[in-house]
């Protein structure tokens, strides 16, 4: 090996991953989308955004609390990131579409993270309502980023109705279970004609690496960062994980084998054993 020693604080790894992420004509250098849910202090959120390198962060829309201290929007503006509003908490296509229209008015963006939930305990998507809402919002000119099941057929249907990406879950929101069904995720990636963003389930850095190694174009992470013991350090860890996974995917991993394959050649081995001591003798 030659060259100068590399410090742990070295500049970000140059993107061997070719083109930047492109969603609906917009280029994003970062393949990490940060969810803002779960941060207990706005100061921590601001620091985590900076360290994460994320350019796009999610927000939700709720009844205004005139007594609330600090403005989330001011923090996000200060961080120079774009807002991706969600339709979290909606259980029907009708409510999700209305929420999306309100978000467009509030944040002056056509981008919407579409969530239509079918069950309050698992927070799993309601497939028929999701598809209905996606179709309606695409018709209304939204750039739709749907949170979906790890179902390759549903992913294809969402793409067919014009969604800008598909965002399959790894496992339930906030569960930290990682990627429950890597096989399905691989199928989604293999057949998708739009970017695939892993949304939900990431618990720690290795989960983000795996998502990228499986071929996801980006990951969306909230709880794994915001609810960790040290959100700012975890934000850095997940950022590096996303970069590491993308590089590994681009580099191409070796196939899994049942038996060993020596990395050192056998040829040229010296004869060192004395006569009579060889186990075969």
């Amino acid at each position, binding site marked *: 090996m030659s060259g100068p020693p590399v410090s742990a604080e070295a500049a970000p790894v140059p993107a061997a991953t070719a083109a930047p992420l492109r969603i609906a004509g917009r280029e994003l250098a970062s393949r990490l989308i940060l969810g803002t849910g779960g941060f207990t202090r706005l100061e921590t959120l601001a620091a985590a955004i900076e360290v994460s390198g994320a350019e796009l962060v999610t927000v939700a829309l709720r*009844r205004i609390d005139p007594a609330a201290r600090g403005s989330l929007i001011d923090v996000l503006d200060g961080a120079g990131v774009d807002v991706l509003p969600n339709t979290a908490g909606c259980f029907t296509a009708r409510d999700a579409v*209305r929420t999306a229209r309100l978000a467009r008015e509030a944040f002056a963006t056509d981008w919407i993270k579409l969530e239509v939930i079918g069950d309050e305990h698992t927070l799993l998507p309601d497939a028929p309502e999701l598809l209905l809402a996606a179709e309606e919002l695409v018709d209304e000119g939204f750039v739709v980023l749907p949170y979906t099941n790890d179902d390759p057929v549903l992913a294809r249907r969402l793409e067919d109705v014009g969604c800008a990406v598909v965002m399959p879950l790894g496992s339930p929101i906030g569960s930290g279970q990682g990627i429950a069904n890597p096989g399905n995720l691989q199928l989604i990636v293999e057949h998708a004609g739009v970017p695939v963003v892993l949304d939900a389930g990431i618990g720690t850095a290795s989960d983000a690496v795996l998502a990228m190694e499986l071929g996801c174009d980006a990951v969306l992470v909230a709880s794994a960062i915001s609810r960790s013991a040290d959100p700012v350090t975890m934000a850095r860890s997940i950022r590096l994980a996303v970069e590491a996974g993308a590089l590994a995917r681009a580099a191409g991993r070796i196939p899994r084998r049942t038996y060993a394959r020596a990395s050192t050649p056998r040829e040229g081995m010296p004869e060192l054993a004395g006569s009579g001591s060889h186990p075969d003798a």
Partner: protein
Amino acid sequence: MTVSVNGEPRELPAGASVSAVLDVLDLEPRRRGIAVAVDGEVIPRAEWGAFPVTDGARVEVLNAIQGG
């Protein structure tokens, strides 16, 4: 007239506009990131000053919170 604002009954003069509702909540209307729905329909910001709220209307005034 009585109008429901974010689920709370509020007394407003007849013919009050969306902007009047924001005044009651002591909100600066130019503040970014606010959206208003009246009976489930979005009222664009440009119409807040003129849009009349009727007796019994349900007004929702929303803003960004952390989530997702």
